[in-house]
């Protein structure tokens, strides 16, 4: 059995890759575990029996590397943050700069979750563009901190919240009909970088390396691209 710890934004892409991997390696059962990267890191630090770690930001992977928990990581995908709002009710948010003015309830992932950190970076950049106080006005609209990016996305898809930051890849088939994407202006946006590494304590180091290989392969990269990730080119 191969246990893959992956950022929750990777859910759909990795579930498809799971099928591929199990087909290529008969008899091997892949068990993916999706959560916020920070939660996964905490679990790995506590000795959870994982074989592979795929994080939604480099900071978490760097921590894991510094603590000697993982082997040398490789970047396997990039992703672009966007804003989503409920399809039915725009809540006055038609473009990014409306975020500060709209009468809206926002949700955001927990502080330590990568998307929340990227959101902070974007808001800092926006301060420069739209004037000081923009970021704070947006922050003041946050009514709940969700455990991970998918939980935040679901709040908006359900119509419980008016806006949140997600990755482009989070606008999946499941919620596409229920949300609208509001792009973040190119000059303000950041590019999320996804590193992957095998866990040092892995009981199946060979299989773990095979999984990383699949993710970096041409077919692996194509799957990621299908789910709106930006591939990094294959090895």
């Amino acid at each position: 059995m191969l246990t893959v710890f992956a950022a929750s934004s990777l859910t759909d892409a990795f579930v498809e890759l799971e099928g591929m991997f199990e087909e290529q390696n008969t008899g091997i059962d892949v068990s993916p575990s999706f959560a916020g990267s920070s939660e996964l890191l905490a679990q790995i630090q506590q000795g959870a029996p994982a074989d592979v770690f795929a994080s939604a930001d480099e900071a978490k992977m760097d921590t894991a590397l510094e603590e000697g928990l993982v082997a040398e990581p490789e970047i396997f995908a990039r992703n672009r943050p966007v804003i989503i709002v409920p399809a039915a009710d725009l809540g006055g948010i038609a473009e990014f700069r409306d975020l500060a003015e709209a009468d809206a309830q926002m949700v955001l992932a927990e502080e330590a979750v990568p998307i929340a950190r990227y959101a902070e970076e974007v808001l800092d950049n926006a301060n420069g563009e739209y004037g000081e106080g923009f970021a704070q006005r947006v922050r003041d609209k946050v009514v709940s901190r969700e455990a991970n990016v998918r939980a935040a996305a679901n709040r908006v898809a359900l119509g419980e919240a008016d806006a949140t930051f997600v990755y482009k890849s989070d606008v999946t088939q499941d919620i596409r009909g229920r949300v609208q994407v509001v792009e973040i202006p190119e000059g303000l946006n950041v590019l999320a970088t996804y590193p992957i590494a095998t866990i040092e304590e892995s009981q199946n180091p060979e299989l773990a390396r095979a999984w990383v290989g699949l993710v970096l392969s041409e077919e692996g990269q194509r799957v990621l691209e299908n789910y709106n990730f930006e591939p990094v080119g294959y090895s």
Partner: protein
Amino acid sequence: MKRRRPGWFGRGDRLASGLAVSALALLAGFICLPLLSLVIWTVNEGAWRAMASQIALDALLLSAKTTAVTMAIIFIVGTPAAFLLARAQFPGKRLVNTLVDLPAVLPPSAAGIALLLAFGRMGLLGEHLRVLGIELSFTTAAVVMAELFVAAHFYVRQAAVGFAGIDRDVEEAAKVDGASRVAVFTKITLPLVYPALVAGAVTAWARALGEFGGTIIFAGSFQGVTQTMPLAIYGTLERDFDAAVALSVMVLGFSFAVILAARFFTGRAEERAGQD
């Protein structure tokens, strides 16, 4: 040598009581070890600092506030409801009984989704409330509702059993002596049922304090507004393990204090009852 009860000498009996003692020791040890580990871990500076952190104090205050409001509502609504369930016969009583029990067996996360679908912005009732300008999700009121939903059963059930266990003749005798119905209830019934009410209240309160799934789904998590102790523990776990441990110890101390207080009050009531 002291006299023992005769049963103690039987061989099978001795074996059985030996087994029972080891079972109890095993159970006590199993509960004790994790709690002890929690406390031992806090013997470091980081944990103490975390206990005084804003997030911890906000969460503890919010937990204390919301569970207090929850318990007040449970007392006011639950006591007469339990009385009715214990004493009255009415059509559909069995159904109502089952309904009251249901939240006790329903996983709290399912309760959270149910609450969201009822009172959330797009919910069955929530949609109409929103038109009136009332939004419940992401508010402290939503936390109380989640706690109420999962905890009420534990008080109502024990209170009902308490009411049902009272010897009606005592009440009737007082009535014959000319006591009013209200006087009978406050002077006779309530003191008799008091230990059952306190026991039920402690269980219900504990359940409300521990409420997690329903709160995080229906009320969300935001410091000072909806982030109760269990949510704060979960939230800090990924960021700062020491802080999560510190919060757990705080909630342990808080629960311990409440249980001791409840023991003290029921103890006093039983003493009084014993003296009468």
